[in-house]
């Protein structure tokens, strides 16, 4: 594992440099998101144009990606985001990450801009820049087929952009396989700006595990424990659509651009309704859980549509947020996005935003070419198609949050952003750790970097105190200890990402899952690196502080940016079991204070020079 290399690829000069990954980088940042951040910190400037040739597009597989373990399929793509203008970092599963590792590489740093469409072909230690003129314009599925046909290698695993990335839709994804997405904040647009259509990898290089037999024994032990857990069984059966029911009964998933409770109608979007179209479950590379549904719609308006997903987030945005209460429509439009390489969550968010603008009369039929009422399935699908193709009003929405510059000023209050990132489908007033995790997320309004999924389980207070090392309220609506909870999960998930492990197989849905001790042992058995828990926690602190320094460089790293959207403090949840909930500004400030203190940052949320010195954060010189 430690033999994997890093390659620097300049698409302007077509120069490719390969080198060993210094052991010091491993010790300090482990891999994937960690080393990606060290590289971005060393390369990006305050004025780097996200869509310019100088914005580095950095791929990084986890240290243990490709080795059976805790869902070790993951890789990260990191760059300055063209969607938020700030830090962009996407974590993705599937099969591409492992194949990149098998081909000999853990990290790719892509700079410059090609004058014509190209793709990278990566086979055992070898990287070629190939002409992609004939595949430019194809969707992400067609692209994968075309590259496999052209090369005659059916086993290539491919990360590609579709029309959304080519058209520089600001929230375009990089997609692999059927629906695995490096999503949210526009890594596909960065790829499109470089005229890089795809990266295809196939390798056969030995993983060179440090302690193979002990690793196999440990994997068997951990795998058996995983399969015995109740949440694993639930995820194996339904996948993340299962989350819609608890979010509904808990009252935190709202409709109509996050303003209205749907009541009984929500049940039309429960997991069971999607299950009617399911062909069974599939998995990422070497995963025991299989949490992803495969769908084929056999009858009705969307007959013939097939694909994988949608996950909870897509259901929350395309279904709940827009009040399109038809699972088949949600499956169809998610697939449309997956094939086009468009982020489902931002596309769905934009549909809710546009529907509210239409309701308020800020945009009209003249702008849209049609009506766009809540629950308008055809209108939603047409507008998503326009967004991807940058047609008509879709072209405005394709600009992401910057679309506000092209709209009347009053439109701004209907767009719920955190650090200029559209929020995820969460109804942020209710679960305090959930909203705080979004507000301090280094990539903007997205909870997945630190969401304590255990927050809603109503675990006993004494258990929580022991688990998190300080008092934490068992009530998810309460504020006590929630900053600590977020901090604790931030650190754990940082190592999860750096190692290439899956969130769903660590202490995310349940506290009874692998965490620090297991990661430490696993890293030792597979790589031979001795990383005791205290050292892992220091790596995690270093990762977070490096990301925070990047935010500071981009001008959004201080406490006034660690805020929820204004309306979550002022407008209560209108109905449902969380009716009346809203955020309290004073208690919010207390959470911020506690959070900065836990990270050893100053009162304004900026890492102190002492912390930066203690963590030995410094840029490295880039050899490419």
């Amino acid at each position, binding site marked *: 594992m430690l033999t994997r290399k890093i390659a620097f690829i300049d698409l302007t000069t077509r120069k490719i440099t390969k080198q060993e990954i210094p052991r010091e980088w491993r010790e300090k940042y482990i891999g994937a998101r960690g080393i990606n951040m060290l590289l971005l910190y060393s390369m990006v400037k305050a004025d780097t144009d996200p869509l310019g040739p100088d914005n580095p597009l950095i791929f990084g597989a986890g240290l243990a990606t490709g080795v059976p373990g805790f869902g070790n399929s*993951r890789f990260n793509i990191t760059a300055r985001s063209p969607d938020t203008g700030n830090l962009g970092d*996407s*974590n*993705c*599963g599937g099969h591409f990450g492992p194949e990149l590792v098998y081909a000999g590489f853990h990290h790719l740093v892509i700079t410059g801009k090609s004058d014509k469409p190209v793709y990278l072909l990566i086979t055992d230690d070898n990287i070629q820049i190939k002409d992609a003129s004939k595949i430019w314009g194809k969707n992400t599925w067609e692209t994968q087929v075309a590259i496999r046909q052209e090369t005659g290698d059916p086993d290539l695993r491919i990360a590609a952009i579709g029309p959304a990335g080519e058209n520089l839709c600001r929230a375009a994804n990089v997609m692999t396989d059927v629906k695995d*997405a*490096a*999503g*949210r904040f526009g890594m596909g647009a960065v790829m499109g700006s470089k005229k890089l259509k795809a990266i295809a990898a196939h390798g056969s290089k030995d993983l060179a595990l440090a302690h193979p037999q002990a690793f196999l024994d440990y994997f068997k032990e951990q795998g058996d424990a995983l399969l015995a857990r*109740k*949440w694993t*069984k*639930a*995820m194996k*059966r*339904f996948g*993340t659509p*299962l*989350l819609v*029911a*608890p979010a509904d*009964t*808990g009252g935190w998933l709202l409709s109509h651009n996050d303003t209205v409770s749907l009541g009984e109608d929500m049940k039309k979007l*429960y*997991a*069971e309704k999607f299950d009617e179209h399911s062909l069974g479950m599939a998995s990422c590379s070497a995963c025991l859980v299989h949490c992803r549904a495969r769908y084929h719609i056999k009858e009705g308006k969307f007959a013939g549509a097939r694909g994988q*997903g949608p*996950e*909870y*987030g*897509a259901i*929350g945005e395309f279904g709940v947020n827009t009040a399109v209460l038809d699972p088949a429509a949600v499956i169809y439009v998610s697939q449309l996005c997956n094939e086009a390489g468009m*982020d489902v*969550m931002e596309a769905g968010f934009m549909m809710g935003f546009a529907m509210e603008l239409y309701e308020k009369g800020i945009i009209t039929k003249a702008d849209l070419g049609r009506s766009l009422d809540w629950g308008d399935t055809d209108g939603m699908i047409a507008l998503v198609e326009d967004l991807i193709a940058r047609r008509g009003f879709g072209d405005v929405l394709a600009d992401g949050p910057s679309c506000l510059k092209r709209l009347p000023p009053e439109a701004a209050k209907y767009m719920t952003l955190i650090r200029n990132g559209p929020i*995820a*489908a*969460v109804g942020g007033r209710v679960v305090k750790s*959930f909203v705080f995790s979004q507000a301090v997320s280094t990539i903007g309004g*997205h*909870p*997945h970097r630190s*969401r*304590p*999924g*255990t*927050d*809603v*389980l*109503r*675990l006993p207070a004494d258990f929580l105190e022991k688990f998190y090392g300080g008092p934490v309220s068992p009530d998810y609506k309460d504020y006590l200890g929630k900053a600590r909870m977020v901090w604790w999960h931030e650190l754990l998930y940082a190592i999860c990402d750096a190692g290439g492990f*899956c*969130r*769903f197989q660590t202490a*995310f*849905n*349940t506290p009874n899952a692998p965490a620090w001790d297991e990661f430490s042992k696993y890293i030792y058995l597979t790589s031979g690196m001795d990383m005791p828990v205290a050292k892992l926690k220091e790596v995690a602190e270093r990762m977070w502080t490096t990301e925070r320094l990047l935010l500071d460089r981009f001008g959004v790293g201080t406490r006034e940016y660690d805020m929820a959207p204004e309306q979550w403090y002022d407008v209560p949840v209108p109905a449902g*079991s969380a009716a009346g909930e809203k955020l309290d500004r004073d208690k919010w400030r207390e959470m911020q204070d506690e959070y900065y203190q836990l990270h050893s940052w100053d009162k304004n949320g900026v890492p102190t020079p002492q912390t930066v010195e203690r963590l030995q954060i410094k840029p490295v010189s880039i050899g490419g």
Partner: protein
Amino acid sequence: MKVRLKAYGLLKSLTGELPGALDISGNTLGDLVSFLGRKYGQKVKDELLDEKGELDFSYAFFVSGERRSNKNAELKEGDEIVITNMLGGGESPG
């Protein structure tokens, strides 16, 4: 005592379609779980209780709209009980 039960997620796949209205003996959530165990088999009881015999935290129990996490939580005539998997999560890793 007559109550109404709605189940979602894995529990529903163990019980199949529920009749909706149930006539249970006893007046607590624990009594309801025992009733379901008798009616649909031990696997349902094993699913809803943890190794200590308490309500498993991976399920959420709502009694007429109020979240309840204790086996001794009281039920009354006509209550609607919702049982659903309680996974935290958020959305797919992205």
